Every structure is written in C-alpha cells, then in structure tokens.
C-alpha cells in the first residue's frame, strides 16, 4: 500500500455517508467535497450539530505530519494562525482498507479574486498588511508557511479578514520546504533555495498578489536569475493597482527583506504617504485622486481591522 505515491482515492465517500473513527469513536456525516490536493481530500461534515472540515487520505505518514503542525500552531495560537484541530483518527472502509483522517474547524469564506473584483482594489492594501501580520507571527513561532498560494487563502466575513486554510507545507525554520507550488516557489524561478526562512514566504506572498491579477499565471522562459527577475518585475509594473507598492514587491522578490515586519513597515509607509499626499493635492487630476483615494481607504480599513 505504501509503494505507490498516488494510489487513486477510489474509496467512494459520498454526501450522507457516516465516518466513524476507530480510536475515538466520533461519527461525522459527510456533507460535500470541499477540495482535494496532493495529500488528501477535504470534506465538509457535520458532527454534533455543527459543521467541520474533515481531511482524509491513505497517506498516514503525511497526514500525521500535518496533524503535528496543526497541534504546534494551536499551542502558539490565541489567534488564528491555522484552523483549530478537533479530532484525529483512522477510518476502516467497508472493504477493510485503512485511511487516516483529521477534523478541523470549518473556515467559511470567499475566494480572494472574486472578492476583490466585487469589493474593489482598495482591499489589496488591507489584505497585504493582514497577511504580513500573520506571517510575522508564524515566523516568530519558528515556522514558515511554505505552500503559500491563492488557493490556500480565503476571505472571511465580519470582520473581513484574509485567512489561510491549508498548513500542509508549513515547515520548521531551517529545514527544507515540505510542499510547494511551482509558480509561487522561488526555487523554480531560480531566485533562492528551498530552505525554510521568512524570505521564502515573502517571495510567495508577492506571487500571491500577482496571481490575483494574472488568473492564468505565467511561466519562466529559462531559469536564469536575470531573465526571471525581469519577467516578474514586468508583470508587477503592468498592474496599475500595484504601482504604489511596486518597490516593496520587487524587494521581496529579490530577497531583500529578512522579516515580514520589515516588509509590512514598508507597505505601511506607502499607505501613510498616500494619505499625506491625498491631503496635499486634493485639486489634482481625477485619476490621481482615485488611486490616492484607494490607498487612503485601504489604510482606513486596515486600521479598523486592527481595532476589531
């Protein structure tokens, strides 16, 4: 059973099915599939009248590793660095095969791109600051997120906040990144190692922001450092909304920030500056007004979200 990486998840888990754990005997009623990845499949389930997310896989070792991460994030928490872990158990399917599953808090939210499309570009600044805040906390507790990508992020409502949902790639600082996705990986772009350090996440962070505006992503033409840097810089420059932040984003791409706090500071400065300019040049051309206005509102939103 362990000899193949991807023995198909051909066990049929369907809505309405009950899954009962071998060790702790809790029962979960499957509601619907939420998504699947390299390690396993995540389902929405119901237990004791409330919803939870259940991840199940035949890769016991990888699942155990993920559980370990969730547990240690839970210890440093008090805040929401990852979904909280509710249960870990094994499930024997009707024909006797064993699967490992864990149950975690169900985070209900909206995908980032549609949210920005509906609610406006002023949210970009807010989300950047929120995300950098979380990354700073994570790094301070000794971890690097690793597989930071748009698909792993959700916007939850009231208060509006960006949250990450899959900790599968989370790696102890100093070790080799456990799981990554090419587009977001600085190794793929020839711009650094895959050693877990804060700057690894900051690179991926910039690619997350870019992927909001490039739904079809883009590729490296050849893996040499200068060409990939040029490619990414051009993509940053082509997005008007990102113009105020472009210096910060480019610095993160080339690994100039050692901590998220440094990068957050830089982005905050951009926002402050924008506010100041806003007061000084209220009679300028309308399009300038607009972009400055966006930054102003973004700053405002972020401070509100800090208070909440």
């Amino acid at each position: 059973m362990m000899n193949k990486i991807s023995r198909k998840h051909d066990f049929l888990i369907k809505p309405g099915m009950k899954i009962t754990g071998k060790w702790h005997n809790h029962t979960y009623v499957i509601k619907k599939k939420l998504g699947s990845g390299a390690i396993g499949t995540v389902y929405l389930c119901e237990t004791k009248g409330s919803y939870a997310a259940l991840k199940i896989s035949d890769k016991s070792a990888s699942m155990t590793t993920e559980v370990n991460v969730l547990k240690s994030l839970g210890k440093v928490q008090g805040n929401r660095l990852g979904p909280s872990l509710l249960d870990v158990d094994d499930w024997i399917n009707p024909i006797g095969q064993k699967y490992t599953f864990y149950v975690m808090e169900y985070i209900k939210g909206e995908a980032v791109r549609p949210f920005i499309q509906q609610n406006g570009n002023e949210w970009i600044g807010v989300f950047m600051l929120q995300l950098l805040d979380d990354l700073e906390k994570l790094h301070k507790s000794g971890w690097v997120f690793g597989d930071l990508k748009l698909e792993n992020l959700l916007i939850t409502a009231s208060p509006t906040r960006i949250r990450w949902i899959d900790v599968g790639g989370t790696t102890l600082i100093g070790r080799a990144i456990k799981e990554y996705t090419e587009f977001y990986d600085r190794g793929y772009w020839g711009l650094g190692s895959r050693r877990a350090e804060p700057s690894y996440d900051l690179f991926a962070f910039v690619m997350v922001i870019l992927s909001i505006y490039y739904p079809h992503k883009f590729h490296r033409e050849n893996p040499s450092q200068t060409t990939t840097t040029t490619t990414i810089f051009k993509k940053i420059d082509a997005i008007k909304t990102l113009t105020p932040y472009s210096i910060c984003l480019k610095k993160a791409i080339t690994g100039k920030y050692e901590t998220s706090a440094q990068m957050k500071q830089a982005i905050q400065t951009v926002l402050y500056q924008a506010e100041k300019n806003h007061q000084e040049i209220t009679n300028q051309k309308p399009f300038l007004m607009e972009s400055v206005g966006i930054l102003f509102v973004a700053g405002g939103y972020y401070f509100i979200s800090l208070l909440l």
Partner: protein
Amino acid sequence: MVKKGTLKQILLITDGCSNKGEDPAATAALAYEQGIVVNVIGILDDDQTEQPEGLQEVEDIALSGGGVSQLVYKATLSQTVQTVTKQAMTQTLQGFVNLELKQILGSNETMDDLAPEKRGEIMEVVEDLGETCDLEVLVLIDTSASMNDKLPTVKEALIDLSISLNSRIGRNRFCIYSFPGKRKDIEKVYDWSPKLDSVSTVFPKLSSGGITPTGPAIREAMYQFSKKSLRRSLRKNDEQDIEEA
C-alpha cells in the same frame, strides 16, 4: 537512539520496457539486499493513457527494490522526481523505525497500528531523520531512442531535485549514469558530486540507442556506491512489515 546513516537510492527514469538481459525486478531486489532502494519514474507520452501495459514493469521494479514508483507526464516530472525521492526516504526511515518498534514492543506492531497520538511523536523522529540524514542518489537514465524528446525535461527536473535536497540539513551526493552505454551496460554522465547545477554542460552528451537493458543497468549502478559502506548503511526495511500495515 537511532544512529545517523546514509540513505542510498537509485532513481531510474525510463519510458518503456526492458528488452535485454536479466529481469530488472530481480536486480532491483539484489540492490535492495545491499541496502540500496530503487525508485522508478515512468514517463508517459502526452497522448498515452495512464496505464499502458508495458509500464507495469515500472511498478514491479520499485516493489522489489523497496522503493516508490510513479507514472507521469513530462509536464509534472520535476515535482514527481522530488516527491518520489522524499517519499522513498520517509518510507525507508519508517521501515527502520518499525523494526526498532518491533524490538521494543516485541510484537508485529508497526507505526500505523499505533494510536494517532503516539504516531505523531514517532513521525517527528522520522521527519527529523529525513531532514538530517545523508543521502546518495544515483540517477539512471534510459537513453533509448524514444527518450530523446524527454531528456531536456529530465535535465531540468534533476537540477530542481538538487535545489530541493540541498535545502535539507543533511548532506547529499548525486551522480548520473545513462544506459545503454557505448560498450558497457551503463555510461557515466556525471560523477558523484554534492550538486547537480553544472549538469547542463554534460547533458547533450547523451546519445540514443535502440536497446533497453534495464536489468543489467541496475546491477551495474549498484556497484557505483562506495563499497565499504554498502552493507553498513541503514538497515534495509522489511517490505512485509509495511505491507501488513
């Protein structure tokens, strides 16, 4: 406490069936006896379905070589090479830990039979070993005619593998052999070295021939590992244990 050791792996990259010499599954078993794990990646043509019959051999070789196998299309080769290598490392280390467990618990219990809480603690040990142990990978590339258009992708995947493994704390050594060789069963492309980044310069040397002597190639590859440490490497795990789980 578990002593730190060197994991030895052969990574066979092929796109078809062997057609000359002994059964590759048998030579893979032999290598495994010597503490060398054999992983196999079968590259599919883009128009091939996922289970062509000829590639059953891929799974068989890895099974008797104590390793991991995977069929893959060119596009996802990079990620697969890494997952296969890392998965095989974990599997070997887990097998080793299972042996220790059996000695301690005196039963047929493996890690997977333990309660999830205990499993978590043991997994931390396995992960720790995987991060810190030394690793030797011999890459064995099939260069028969049909592989020609796949070789550039293979090259990129190997450079990428070296980036990933060199981000670990443990040390690595890589070397590359191709088969069939001009006069011998295998041909040295790249000598043992801690990195693969200068591989670009040697790759064009690969020439394509008609026969595919996979079995003899694995046998020869086995002898390229430093001989004194062959039997002293991490004790081989017992496939039976894992299968029972």
